[in-house]
């Protein structure tokens, strides 16, 4: 129980096409993350799955049943929102209970589920409080709890961590990962943060301008990006793209990740001057202005002392260099 299938879903707001034909299958128990830049349509796609937006054409199937015209409450889904969206006039307990009450669940059953969910998310001390009396992290846990008690076929997360501060984000990310492991439920998660995407996902769906660019496990996308967009989007700092003609290559663009470059003070492939160095402790990011390759980023593990203005030679790892054609696709 809990598979999702999307068939050629299109969505247009007036003349603006936001989704241009999405096909996707999510297996039972899978954690799938939609990732992409702002405005790529990932949130709209999630809303179409939830039933909060009607698709212009195409079908959404949950557990094999077409739910394209089913109202959100009857789809067997639960959603966690970026802004928590707790009911301000209800206590934590009633926030969690409301959906079940609406569905006519017996009171004893509601009580049982709230007990389990609040234990799972350590919300017991706050059950009688109102959302205004909780911190941001607690509110988001309540929102997750509200989703958990519904025991849905499908969990939908719409950028749930974006409103939390950095430290809390890491904790809550961990909680969501544990939740997925414990419930073994199907989860669809939308984010623009690629660290969240990489750490949580079984499978990543990279979206750009209303189209799916590539689907795969985080490592597949990192190691074998299908095109320039995915290559540039996955990985931080971003992959370096160098004009092939300048390097005397046949490919339109050559891509190499900052961590697949080595530097040497005496010799190497590309000679360049250090523009800026970022010291992060665990690693060092160097920005080099190269004669042949232009401005590139090099990521060196550990501490590396380089003064701006000094000359360094960068050498790419030939096995981990990507070649892209004029259409942006990887050349085999």
């Amino acid at each position, binding site marked *: 129980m809990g598979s999702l299938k999307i068939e050629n879903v299109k969505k247009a707001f007036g003349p603006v096409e936001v989704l241009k034909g999405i096909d996707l299958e999510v297996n039972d128990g899978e954690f799938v993350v939609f990732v992409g830049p702002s405005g790529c349509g990932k949130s709209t796609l999630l809303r179409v799955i939830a039933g*909060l937006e009607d698709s212009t054409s195409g079908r959404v199937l949950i557990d094999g049943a077409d739910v394209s015209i089913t109202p959100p409450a009857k789809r067997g889904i639960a959603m966690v929102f970026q802004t928590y969206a707790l009911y301000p006039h209800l206590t934590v307990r009633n926030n969690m209970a409301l959906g079940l009450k609406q569905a006519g669940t017996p009171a004893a059953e509601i009580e049982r589920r709230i007990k389990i969910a609040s234990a799972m998310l350590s919300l017991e001390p706050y059950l009688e409080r109102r959302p205004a009396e909780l911190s941001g992290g607690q509110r988001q846990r309540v929102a997750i709890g*509200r989703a958990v008690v519904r025991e849905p076929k499908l969990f939908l997360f719409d950028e749930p961590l974006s409103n939390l501060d950095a430290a809390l984000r890491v904790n809550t990310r961990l909680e969501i990962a544990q939740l997925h492991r414990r419930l073994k439920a199907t989860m669809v998660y939308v984010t623009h943060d690629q660290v969240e995407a990489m750490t949580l996902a079984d499978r990543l769906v990279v979206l750009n301008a209303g189209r799916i660019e590539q689907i795969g496990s985080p490592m597949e996308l990192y190691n074998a990006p299908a095109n320039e967009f995915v290559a540039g989007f996955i990985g931080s700092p971003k992959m370096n793209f160098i004009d092939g003609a300048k390097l005397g290559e046949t490919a339109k663009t050559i891509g190499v990740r900052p961590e697949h470059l080595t530097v040497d003070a005496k010799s190497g492939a590309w000679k360049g001057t250090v523009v800026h160095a970022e010291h992060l402790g665990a690693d060092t990011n160097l920005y080099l202005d190269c004669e042949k390759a232009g401005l590139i980023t090099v990521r060196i593990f550990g501490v590396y002392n380089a003064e701006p203005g000094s000359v360094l030679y960068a050498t790419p790892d030939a096995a981990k260099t990507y070649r892209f054609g004029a259409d942006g696709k990887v050349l085999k």
Partner: protein
Amino acid sequence: MSTATRSLPRTIGAHAILITYTVIALFPVILVVMNSFKSRAGIFGAPLTPPTTKTFDLIGYTTVFGQGDFFHYFQNSLVVTVASLFFVLLFGAMAAFALSEYRFRGNTLMGLYLALGIMIPIRLGTVAILQLMVASGLVNTLTALILVYTAQGLPLAIFILSEFMKQVSNDLKNAGRIDGLSEYTIFFRLVLPLVRPAMATVAVFTMIPIWNDLWFPLILAPSEETKTVTLGAQLFLGQFVTNWNAILAALSLAILPVLILYVIFSRQLIRGITSGAVK
């Protein structure tokens, strides 16, 4: 206690301006209330002095309570005001919700059409309204007044409330939809409580002109049965002789109910006025 943002001269200056304004605004009200407790000779002899033992007289109030059915007029005014207020807030909020929440063809045009009434005074249509009321047999009923005042209050109510409703989080409404709440429940239980300050603002702006109106009661409901307070006070306003004691007493009494309603709304209102500015 001078800080970076507050200095003594500035505080004094600000207070001086505010106090001056308060005095100017309250002066006529105080004058009316003061003179309502004076004898006729007292009112004309020294209108600006407070009642003394010599001029103190309750003749105005005894006339008001003795002559005419003032309690009944009060009741009429209150029924008309409260009922109109209820309908303005209910229909105004519903229309505002539809305009701000749903995408449909002609949404913007509909919003403009509904807001048009802010700029066109409803009194321009008096003749047509009177004909309409005569035709539908509503002349000399409170219903006629309630209908007209509801129409009069709606444009501003819709305009203000739709702006506020746009600020209510979409996520919250969507969370309600996923939990299986109907659109009506979402409107009444989630959205309305969140725009309560705006509702109070609209309530006050709507209530005061209705309470004070003389025009429509005079034209649509001048019968003894349906007289409102403002119309009832006209009883003492003659062509040759005017009973000032009674008029001033009636006006002083008329302040009370509206003051009570204002106090009820004011706590919400203050938040309503500042809510846009201070988050």
